[in-house]
């Protein structure tokens, strides 16, 4: 069988190497090359999606297993179920758009080459992580991911980019370190042998309750940092403020999903009892994230920080959905991971375009632009509305599935979370109001309408959100079975909130 | 008289050598302190050899002697190299090791 997943990991990685190897003279067309590679990757992802057997969405498909370090039982094992499939597709969709969105950055061809190579490298790692079927491989990629990101944030970005990069690195490393302890502990609990780290071999382990809980917490902590949950979220606004919008879009839209993805496919799937034990507390933190993120988003003047706080809020909803352990809520959370990627990605891109025009992310510097750039305003509004989960756009479906699905388990949590709905309206509309409404500014001609390239970045995302808003079945079909499997493993406890 | 007294003598010489290394800033003098420490060890070895009636202790001392000679050669060469570079042999001057 054609090793499509390995190819999908290798393609961008090789592409990055090629870009690096290009002699200085040949770097003029580097953007086109990078775009070509990412589009090819997207084509592969589409092929993957088409080939995917929806009827068996709960099973791992496109499996590949090669022995890697048999001494410790690590293997190069890839494969996706429905959830992993969607995340791989999401990564493949957003990377070419990130390349396009950053088209105007960097006049210097060498610098541009470095940036694009790092983006490609990130894509390779992202695909690898979402397809990893081996806990050790997952961990290695999880940590390796930090390398391109550290440079993406630290070398390309705003005034405090170094501070932001270090902060990001420290947070991630702390999480990764604790997770490493979990990985090692898991090895000793596992069956051992050549394939000790395959996730298939790690389910249904018999270990003592306290061991299981500790390992669960080790993994969960790392993922909670990645999917920024209050109170370990503060790295995200700093990074968002200082990194390039394109980088942040990839980071928040795809990479942070590793957190929720890991919670779903590792934490819950491998340690169901511990997950059920910890769920009430986690749900409390999730709800705090929802409200806290929303309130802080309202209080921001910097649009990049604002969007990152909205993500904190949305991640709270995803975590709530995961740890409510009902079929609908888990489906909704998994779907939200995808939809949030589209929505937030588009939002960061759009804010990036604004900053490109005016050079600041401060909302108070804007105003009255609706009359000047109506198309931009309309596009921005639609993207903003997707962030507040307006029906008709896909985030709505996932959000309502989480809220409605989790209601039976955690009534109080859901009721408090619905405040997030009001807060979402506030932060989106207030931002739109400050940027686009009000008296038409004096220097109206200096503000350019959305260019064709920018439309190519934003409109496909909007189209996708519309299609999935009305026909979410395309995605849900691949999620139902995995969600059902996960829910089935968790011991049901009737105690509600 | 018991040969153990030579071991006591060796201990005293060793302590004096160590104190020289710690307290003198002249590299050559400190280096001589090192030599004294080595010789103190040798004395102890020979004394043990005498006490146990085994000749191997002397052989060990012989080896130490050879190694010490090699060490002196290299050490003095280093001192000269440093002197050429800095015109001083004070141990307090080279502070590149500062963290």
């Amino acid at each position, binding site marked *: 069988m054609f090793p499509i997943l390995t190819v999908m990991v290798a393609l961008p990685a090789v592409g990055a190497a090629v870009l690096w190897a290009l002699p200085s003279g040949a770097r003029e067309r580097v953007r086109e090359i990078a775009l070509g590679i990412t589009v090819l990757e997207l084509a592969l992802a589409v092929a993957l999606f088409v080939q995917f057997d929806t009827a068996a969405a709960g099973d791992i498909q496109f499996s590949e297993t090669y022995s890697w370090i048999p001494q410790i039982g690590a293997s190069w094992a890839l494969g996706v179920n429905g959830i992993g499939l969607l995340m791989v597709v999401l990564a493949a969709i957003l990377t070419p758009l990130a390349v396009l969105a950053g088209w105007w950055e960097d006049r210097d061809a060498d610098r541009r080459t470095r940036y694009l190579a790092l983006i490609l490298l990130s894509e390779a790692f992202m695909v690898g992580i979402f397809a990893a079927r081996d806990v050790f491989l997952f961990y290695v990629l999880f940590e390796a991911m930090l390398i391109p990101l550290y440079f993406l944030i630290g070398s390309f970005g705003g005034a405090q980019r170094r501070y932001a990069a270090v902060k990001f690195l420290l947070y991630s490393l702390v999480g990764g370190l604790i997770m490493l302890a979990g990985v090692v502990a898991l090895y000793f609990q596992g069956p051992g042998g050549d394939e000790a780290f395959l996730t298939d071999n790690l389910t249904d382990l018999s270990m003592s309750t306290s061991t299981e809980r500790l390992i669960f917490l080790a993994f969960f902590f790392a993922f909670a940092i990645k999917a920024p949950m209050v109170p370990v979220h503060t790295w995200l606004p700093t990074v968002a403020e200082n990194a390039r919008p394109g980088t942040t879009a990839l980071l928040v839209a795809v990479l942070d999903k590793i957190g929720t993805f890991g919670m779903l496919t590792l934490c819950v799937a491998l340690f169901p009892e511990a997950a059920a034990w910890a769920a009430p507390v986690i749900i409390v933190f999730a709800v705090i994230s929802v409200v806290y993120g929303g309130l802080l988003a309202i209080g921001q003047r910097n649009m990049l920080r604002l969007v990152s706080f909205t993500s904190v809020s949305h991640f709270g909803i995803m975590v709530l959905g995961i740890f409510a352990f009902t079929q609908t809520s888990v489906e909704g959370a998994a779907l939200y991971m995808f939809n949030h990627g589209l929505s937030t990605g588009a939002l960061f891109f759009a804010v990036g375009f604004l900053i490109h025009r005016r050079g600041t992310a401060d909302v108070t510097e804007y105003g009255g632009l609706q009359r000047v750039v109506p198309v931009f305003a309309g596009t921005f509004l639609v993207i903003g509305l997707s962030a507040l989960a307006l029906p008709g756009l896909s985030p709505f479906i996932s959000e309502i599935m989480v809220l409605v699905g989790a209601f039976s388990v955690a009534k109080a949590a859901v009721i408090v979370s619905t405040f997030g709905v009001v807060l979402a309206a506030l932060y989106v509309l207030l931002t739109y109001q400050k940027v686009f409404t009000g008296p038409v500014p004096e220097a109206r001609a200096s503000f350019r309408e959305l260019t064709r390239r920018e439309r190519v970045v934003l409109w496909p995302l909007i189209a996708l959100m519309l299609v999935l808003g009305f026909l979410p079945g395309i995605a849900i079909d691949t999620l139902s079975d995995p969600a059902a499997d996960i829910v089935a493993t968790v011991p049901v406890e009737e105690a509600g909130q | *008289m*018991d040969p*153990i*007294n*030579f*071991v*006591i*003598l060796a*201990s*005293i*010489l*060793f*302590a*004096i050598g*160590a*104190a*020289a290394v*710690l*307290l003198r*800033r*002249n590299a*050559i*003098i400190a*280096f*001589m*302190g090192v*030599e*004294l420490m080595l*010789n103190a060890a040798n*004395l102890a070895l*020979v*004394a043990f*050899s*005498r*006490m*146990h*009636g*085994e*000749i191997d202790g*002397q*052989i060990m*001392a*012989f*080896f130490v*002697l*050879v190694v010490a*000679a*090699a060490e*002196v*050669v*290299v050490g*003095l*060469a*280093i001192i*000269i*190299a440093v002197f*050429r570079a800095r015109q001083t*042999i*004070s141990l*307090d001057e080279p502070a590149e090791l500062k963290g």
Partner: protein
Amino acid sequence: MVNPVLFWIIAAITVIPAFSLLFARKAVHVAMSIVLVMVGLAAAYITLGAPFLGMVQIVVYTGAVMMLFLFVLMLVGVDQREDLKETIKGQRWIGLFTAAGLGAFLVSVVGRVTVAVSDTPVQGDPDVVAVLLFEKYVLVIEVLGFLLITAAVGALVLTHTPRLKPRRTQLEVQRDRVLAGADPVNKPMPGVYARHNALDVPALDPEGQPIDHSVSRVLKIRNQTQEGVEFRAALEDPSRKEGDR
């Protein structure tokens, strides 16, 4: 057993000079004291039944090592005096305390130990040692040989001053001189006939013309030079006779 008197003599000629390590200001003095210590140690070895080692000690230490030290001191400058004032905070007292403590501790421990002394003292004569060295420990000897060679080479490398620029050939030196405006050959020497002190008389070129710059600038300023013309005139004067003027 060892003669106590001998022991005390050895103790005296080792410990007392050893203190010069701590108190003597001049490195030369220290080195000379250490020579004494080494001799004392050699005596101790001989006393303890290791005559070969004692000889080697004298040859190697007093003869080679300490001489090497003295050579280095010559290179570095014998008169390098050391300021005994301590610069590192606490170093002197902690160092003294630790060293003294170590010594006291070792002495107290060793002093409490009683070891049965062998009744059959071995004598480390050269033939005995030689057999042992080249039979039982031959491999170690070989390795030590390597070590010594390496150390020697290392010392050469360390003390070697590398030539940073290529050596200038004579041709280059000469070319630079001419380019700088020097005479192509040696400067003409002043004076033709030693009728005066000759330094104040300019040389004559092949055409018989005086060469001004062959006379020291200083003499010209002092007006102590002779015009060459005057001499030439005298030279060409047919009425000139030997012993005129």
